[in-house]
């Protein structure tokens, strides 16, 4: 198992009560493992069915590999402008 930090913003930060959380995931983890671990934390029930993840400041599509040292962020529905 390994630990990853996940950045949270806006409504998600409010739901989890933190702007960054640590999740424990299997070695060779994927974005799906991160989302699954987040759902197990207090506040995780606020996540939609298919939450949007960014890795190293880029949106991910589908399931991707994630590793310690990468900047992982959970992106709530955006509303700029």
């Amino acid at each position: 198992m390994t630990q990853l930090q996940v950045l949270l913003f806006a409504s998600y930060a409010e739901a989890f009560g933190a702007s960054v959380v640590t999740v424990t995931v299997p070695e060779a983890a994927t974005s799906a493992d991160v989302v699954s671990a987040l759902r197990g934390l207090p506040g995780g029930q606020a996540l939609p069915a298919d939450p949007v993840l960014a890795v190293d400041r880029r949106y991910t599509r589908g399931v991707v590999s994630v590793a310690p040292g990468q900047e992982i962020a959970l992106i709530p529905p955006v509303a700029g402008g």
Partner: protein
Amino acid sequence: MIRCAIVTTCIDPTALLSEVTCRETGATSLFVGTVRDVNEGRAVTGIEYSAYTSMAQDEMVRIAHEAAERFDGVRVAIEHRVGMLYLEDISVAIAVAHARRAPAMDANRYLIEELKRRVPVWKQEHYVDGERVWVDPTATCASMPTS
């Protein structure tokens, strides 16, 4: 020429216009977004904007490069403000310049639509009755950001 920034102070649209305009540009378009007093029938007193600043700036640059590629090398300057904004405050300004008007105007429309769809910025509306609500465009629109 491309410059995109998340800012915490007042946006000066004329500065953005000056930035993109040069001898070769005969047409400059400007989009300015401001805080309005009513949304979805509710009286608004202000909007608190927040952002994933580093990614927001990267994503705006990516969008600006896409616009330059699609619209014949348009020159682009974008600023999006974060923090507490009140009625009529400018939240976003986009200036686009080109030799001709069509690319300048079409690119500006492309930029604001993609910014609203993809750039990780959030707003919490403050209403007259004291309630505060995170705006969620996906509640009424199924589109999600993609890479």
